[in-house]
């Protein structure tokens, strides 16, 4: 996936405000869609197929007469939910690997970090496709595919964080106070790592959404009847060739806008972060 590096750019204030508003409304629309704007997933209106965008249908209708804007909101919901779960799985895997490497250190650390470098050298879309193929396409396969290809940066963040924490005086104090290994880990190290882990998970969500979208676009992701952004882009390809561009390009536009908004906000955050974490947080 693209790495959005808005490095130390002096972002004007309104840009941040607009970006935040976009993100909040995208999340709200995704979460509240079933309440605000119920959708019958199977509703088909063959009298209204491939209508161009208008007031009644702001993003037109697809080749089954379904409202594209309406389905896009649901697609965003599905993609965000799948992305969030997948990002969480990636964070858990990365947290465990980084946690073991950072607390044990020594040869274990070296071996684990070598594995991280190995996976980083692989084309991760191919690896993701391979994982989905071996598990048969579906929701679980997509989540695992993202989890197994996206845990690297989290592992690196957690490891470097733990390595630097280990040398801090309060850890020495805890150990000389008689705290066991487990107590040091859960009471002293974990509280410091958790906020960064939470941030890493949040930043992982768009990566996960991109991966899911790419797999769904190839027909290897979520079940085809489900309105996810990738599925909609894939479905719309047929209409595209007949001149109706909206069924596939409109859902994609949502991905573009949300990603841009997130990159803008992240660029702001990153300047305030500690440089070690900053280096790993490439969106």
């Amino acid at each position, binding site marked *: 996936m693209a790495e959005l590096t808005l490095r130390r750019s002096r972002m004007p204030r309104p840009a941040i405000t607009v970006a935040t508003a976009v993100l909040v409304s995208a999340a709200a629309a995704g979460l509240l869609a079933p309440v605000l704007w119920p959708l019958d997933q199977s509703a088909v209106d063959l009298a209204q197929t491939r209508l161009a965008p208008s007031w009644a249908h702001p993003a037109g209708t697809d080749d089954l007469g379904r409202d594209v804007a309406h389905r896009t909101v649901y697609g965003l919901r599905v993609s965000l939910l799948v992305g969030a779960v997948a990002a969480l799985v990636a964070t858990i895997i990365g947290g465990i690997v980084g946690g073991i490497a950072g607390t044990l250190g020594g040869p274990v650390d070296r071996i684990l970090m070598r594995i991280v470098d190995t996976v980083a050298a692989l*084309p991760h879309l191919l690896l993701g496709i391979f994982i989905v193929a071996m598990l048969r396409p579906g929701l679980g396969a997509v989540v695992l595919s993202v989890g197994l290809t996206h845990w690297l940066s989290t592992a690196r963040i957690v490891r470097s964080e733990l390595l630097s924490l280990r040398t801090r005086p309060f850890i020495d104090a805890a150990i000389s106070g008689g705290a066991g290994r487990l107590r040091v880990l859960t009471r002293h190290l974990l509280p410091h790592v958790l906020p960064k882990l939470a941030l890493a998970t949040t930043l992982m969500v768009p990566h996960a959404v991109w991966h899911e979208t790419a797999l769904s676009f190839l027909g290897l992701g979520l079940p085809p009847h489900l309105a996810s952004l990738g599925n909609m882009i894939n479905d719309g390809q047929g209409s595209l060739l007949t001149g109706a*561009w909206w069924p*596939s390009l409109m859902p994609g536009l949502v991905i573009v806008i949300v990603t841009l908004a997130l990159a803008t906000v992240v660029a702001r955050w990153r300047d305030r972060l500690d440089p070690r974490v900053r280096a790993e947080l490439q969106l």
Partner: protein
Amino acid sequence: MTPTATARRRRRGIAGAGAVVRRRLLVAVPVLIATSIGMFLLGAASPIDPAKQYAGAAAFTATEENLDQIRANWGVDDPLPVQYVRWVGNLLRGDLGWSTSRHEPVTAVLGARAGWTLLLVSAALALVLVTSLVLGTLAAYRRGGLFDRGLRAAAYAVEAMPVFWLGLAAIAVFALTLGWLPAGGLTGVTATTTTAADVAWHLILPVGVLAISQAPWFVLFVRDSVAESLRDDHVLAARARGLPGRTVLFGHAMRTALLPFLTLIGTHLPELVGGAVLVETVFSLPGLGAVTVQAALGSDFPLLAAITLVTTAVVLTANLLTDLAYAAADPRVRLDG
């Protein structure tokens, strides 16, 4: 400098190159072994029965004895380490296995398809490198100017666009609305032979889309890197000597910035490969991308494993080459260091 000193240094350089190759191999071989083990385990954990898959539709009518016979022939019930060693042994002897989704040897599939993917990726890479070097350098020359700001805004915008979406948009605009370029395929519908001109004509859009989608990262990197080297002593010295701006910019500042750029190309290759799979799907090109998707839908382990391993090997080789190029281009880097 005496000629003997130069010769000695050149000899040391070549010996150093050998050391780099050795050190890289020391990393590459474990990487390939680890990847193959990981993939093999995933394949073994897969719920798909290879015997039924091989039999295809006939699996519904085949007797259990026949299926057992296939399993025995293939040794799929042997202990996993035995199977793994047999698989790797076959790979090393050049036998990549039988593709169950295409019903032909994996080597035949790779032979027929890999060339087109390589052509797409290398053409796109060449285009990305040239344009990002030129655009990035120009943007760095007048930092904060209109061109710089416009280029950066465009780069951020493009970076947020999934490559397949960009491809579909390009088809909608250039192929369907304007009718300038073909929407997909490698040759015209009526063509009976494959001519270079026809292929080039059909590759303009795919190569362009792949290049544009990869460009932002490279452009921004070149821009920052040239901007930094414009403040270097030797660049200031060149300016002070009164050399023309273009010579200083491209001859001095860009050359310094070129070095870190070289190694980063290698790390960005996996990205480019993923993009190529998606672009090939969008433009219906007969490369490895379409076969990969077909193989994935058919859970074709031999073909998928071969494609992933070969790609990994190519990426690792490219990393080695960029390392060597770096050392060749920068006299300050000592290969044997």
